[in-house]
């Protein structure tokens, strides 16, 4: 590949200057954020940012690189296939709703809702993380599972924590996703249909 040196601008124009500044700012923001996350863990400040449970963040000074799991595209594509098939999910989301009446949208939403419910019920067992009613007071003992329950608001003091259950949470207790034939192309989430 040939690079024509003469085409590289020798002076910065306004647009590129702004671009460079912006990228510098965002880079520094990223670094600061990373630091603040680490400090939040140590000092338990007022706000806790959601932290992905799979990303172990060490309390040591020198954080180790986190082991990240690769989400398998096959499973995601399969779920899209199932939702498209039973609930017309992709068709619905790909529609432009602006020109339709609420009645039309409502009729289609029923298809999507009924189908999604069927898919969810067939392939997943779901149960609430907390069995208490929402908007009631509950108490979390010491050592509660932080990936199951997320504290928000005035997060100070020691366990037990007393607070209001805002959302009861959902937990998948069983997955029964279909198996995929080895040669199956999962990227085709809905084949084209031709009637003869």
């Amino acid at each position, binding site marked *: 590949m040939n690079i024509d040196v003469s085409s590289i601008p020798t002076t910065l124009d306004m647009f590129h200057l702004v671009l460079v500044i912006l990228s510098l700012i965002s880079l520094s923001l990223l670094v600061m954020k990373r630091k603040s996350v680490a400090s939040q863990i140590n000092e338990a400040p007022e706000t806790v940012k959601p932290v992905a449970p799979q990303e172990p963040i060490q309390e040591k000074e020198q954080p180790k690189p986190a082991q990240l799991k690769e989400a398998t595209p096959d499973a995601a594509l399969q779920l899209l296939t199932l939702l498209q098939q039973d609930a017309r999910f992709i068709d619905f989301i790909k529609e432009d709703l602006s020109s339709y009446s609420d009645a039309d949208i409502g*009729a*289609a939403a*029923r298809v999507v809702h009924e189908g999604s419910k069927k898919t969810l019920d067939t392939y997943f067992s779901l149960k609430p993380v907390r069995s208490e009613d929402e908007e009631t007071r509950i108490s979390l003992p010491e050592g509660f599972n932080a990936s199951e329950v997320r504290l928000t608001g005035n997060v100070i003091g020691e366990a037990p924590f007393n607070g209001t259950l805002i959302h009861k949470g959902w937990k998948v207790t069983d997955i029964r996703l*279909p*198996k995929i*034939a080895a*040669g*199956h192309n999962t990227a085709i989430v809905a084949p084209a249909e031709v009637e003869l």
Partner: protein
Amino acid sequence: MSAGMDTSEGTNMDVTEVETDARYSIGIDLGTTHCVLSYLDLTKATADPTEEVEVSVMSIPQLSQPGLIEEKKQLPSFIYRAHDSELNEDDITLPWSDEPDVIAGSIARELGSKTPIRLVSSAKSWLCHGGIDRHADILPAGSPEEVSKISPLTATVEYLDHLRNAWDHQFPDYPLTEQEVTITIPASFDPAARELTAEAASHISFDHLTLLEEPQAAVYNWIKACGDDWREQVSVGDIILVVDIGGGTTDLSLVAVTEDDGNLTLNRVAVGDHILLGGDNMDLALAYRVKAKLAKEGKELQSWQIQAIVHACRDAKEQLLLDNDINEVAISIPSRGSKLLGNTLRTELTRSEVQESLVEGFFPQISIDEHPVAARRSALSQKGLPYAQDPAVSRHLAAFLSRQSDAASDLIEDSAADDFIKPSAILFNGGVLKAPALADRMLSIINQWLTDAGAEQARLLSDSDLDLGVSIGASYYGYVKQGQGVRIRGGLASTYYVGIESSMPAIPGMEPPLEALCIAPFGMEEGTETEASNTEFGLVVGEPVHFRFFGSNVRRHDEAGVQLDHWQDDELEELPELQATLPAEGRKVGEVVPVHLVAKVTEVGTLKLEAIAVGCTDENGEPERWQIELDVRS
């Protein structure tokens, strides 16, 4: 008939003491719309008979759509005859085979809903349809010549084969063919349909096979669910009515409770006619109702939309038949294209519509003497399936109870009645009766009849899982056969006759009168054989000889050899004719050989008819015998 199915060899051993080396007792419900396989660990169950026996339902891997394999408790009884360029080879693999010969189960039903000309369905109903050759490749019925067809028998073999593969894949150390296998059949199956089911099973070559009537399996399921308590729930003199309404058929049976040496005994005393009427009819009825409603609004439907409406109605019906406050369920049929909005057809199904179409339409509150109007099945000249012409289940039930008015009179004193037999307990089975509104209606109709007749109300025996019950009951039966627990006495549910034309001078325009020779009596048990009748028939060597064949489920007292010269019109039902062919070996073609007829019931539970040559023996000194075909191939 194929060889190898005859396990009895004419012996008369007591089947209750059959010991097998099988590890599992397998129950297979080979349904019109779904197949279910359940299993019971015999080693575990017999080790400690006081423990409650455990029956599990096998998850059956099957393709749900191209490339996706799902495990489901039910295998839909459908086969799809795909076009060569229709499916990618990589997309139709199964856990046990990367290129299955047939496409069966959920995927078949799914593909077939859009391409019905390639869908094989209701093979079981075709199997018991005497008007057609059941070995002939006729399914999918009525589709273009180019579609490769299979016979109802082959379809049945394929379902069994799928189950066998699924089992062997999960239990590689215990091949299905070596287990104690019980396959259920409708009580109303005629001898030919039973034989065909056994023949289908013979292609899988099961070592230990028994056929069990579905309503009996439902009773076994109930006994299993109750444990020892079943004895508390019924008492001597009870007559249990089993009502089994599945996807395609309605099956009725009566079981009388008697006492033997101080132990309660169950006797299956009557079975109903074969009624092709079930849940599918109900879904269709609702769909056509919705279609009519939309037509009034000026909306014409295409056939794919009607299909979709049938599906939607099936789901909606389940909610509307529950005892709840829902008064209407929306039915939305989206367009087939990717544009969902604006093209979605919307209507609703209301509780009162379901009430009117299903509860009043299929379960009308009628009196005991209102019977189906349409003529009973005359076996010989139909092309399509002989669907019941009267959709009212209650009228079919009224006819059954009236016909069987003295079914239990031999066993239970005072049970004979002029009008109808009065059940004292009722057991429901089949998916349709899961709907409380329908079960309640059915019970109230029966109780109304009983009250009107001054009898006590019947009580409902609570049963578990009406969808899987038959298969569970069947695997429990395999355990009972090992000598554990109570066994229902059954035997043949009909008396069988061969028609004989009386010899008289021909009169133009008048058929010679027909006499009926009883060849197999009612209640004849597995592993027994009748004495040769005195009546001689002439078989022509080298030519097929046909016999007219009749069954009666009301004449209980005719012994083998009895010859009837008259009977009530509806007492005897004509079945598909029988055929015997004498091979010409060692004889002159055209020679007439006199024979007697004998009947035996095999251990498997099928009827065998044989012709025995009079006065000539084979090299061992035994009389020569020929099999008489129950299913005549044209």
